[in-house]
């Protein structure tokens, strides 16, 4: 049987490393989604995820409301992203990384024009996602950006199947409407 999150947090607070690692498995993609929304760059999001997890590991003892582990961790991630943003212009670095990646992979990636077009589209989708209500912003980011399926999103957000269905119903419908504004009328697939 799957251990409840509350039990895991409690065990982790008493120094059980395996329990903390299980929490990492259950929340890493959610934190990554939050950081991707902030930075728009997959490598930086992963670096910051690492920073956030290490801070969480070292300060877990300070968490008083054990059932608020997720929101506590997301707050840490948010602060880590803000600090990183201060250190260096995030978007500047993202662009630099994109250029290096493009040079490194050469013929494996789409042509420069196509890649520029895709990057523009990615940035537009990010803007739409950032404007979504908090309620389903992370669920949508997990699905579209991180590529998570229903079961993964459920675990990462700590939701039941039914609760997530409701969220996705409202969120994805809104997302389709926003995407139509960007792209014009849909084409059947």
């Amino acid at each position, binding site marked *: 049987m799957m251990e409840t999150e509350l039990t895991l947090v409690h065990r982790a607070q008493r120094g059980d*490393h395996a329990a*903390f*690692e299980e929490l*990492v*498995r259950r929340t*890493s*993609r959610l934190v*990554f989604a939050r950081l991707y929304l902030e930075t728009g760059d*997959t490598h930086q*999001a*992963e670096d910051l*995820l*690492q920073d956030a*997890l*290490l801070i969480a*590991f070292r300060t877990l003892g300070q968490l008083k409301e054990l059932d608020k582990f997720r929101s506590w961790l997301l707050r840490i991630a948010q602060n880590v992203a803000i600090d990183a943003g201060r250190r260096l212009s995030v978007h500047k670095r993202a662009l630099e990384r994109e250029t290096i990646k493009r040079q490194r992979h050469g013929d494996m*990636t789409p042509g420069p024009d196509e890649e520029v077009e*895709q990057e523009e*589209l*990615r940035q537009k*989708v990010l803007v739409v996602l950032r404007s979504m209500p908090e309620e389903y912003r992370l669920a949508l980011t997990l*699905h*579209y*950006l*991180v*590529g998570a*399926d*229903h*079961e993964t*999103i*459920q675990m990462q957000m700590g939701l039941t*199947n039914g609760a*997530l*269905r409701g969220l*996705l*119903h409202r969120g*994805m*419908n809104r*997302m*389709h409407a926003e*995407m139509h504004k960007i*792209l014009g009328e*849909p*084409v*059947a*697939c």
Partner: protein
Amino acid sequence: MSEHTWVQENLNAYVTGGLSAQERGRGEKHVASCSECTHEQADICETEQLMEGIFARVRPDAGLEDRAIHQLRQARKPRPSWMRFVTATAAVIVLGLIGGAVQMFALDGALPFQVAQVDGGRPMKWMAREVILGRSGSSRAVSRSR
């Protein structure tokens, strides 16, 4: 709830893989006979394909969690024993030096190093510069004219 309403509310869960096999069958049966739901499904499908196309290359891979856990383990690893020995030795030397200095101060009633004297009201930053450069007070003009 009518079949149509049920399908409308669950089409997104169908696409993300949130329905049971039985529910999927129920949805597919209705969609096959309803033009509105067919249209809706095509719409959802289009957004899915578009997102797949633009984000597939930048998504985190399956190893994300393993990498995170590996790095956490590295971070909490105790330092090797030779490193701890070097740190401890350095601490002993530093403490010894401080102890010696304090003792000299206690015996002589003076600081064990020379302190720059305030000289003709010159700005402190010039004095600091001269101390760093190892010049005497009179060399100020020379150092400035260089």
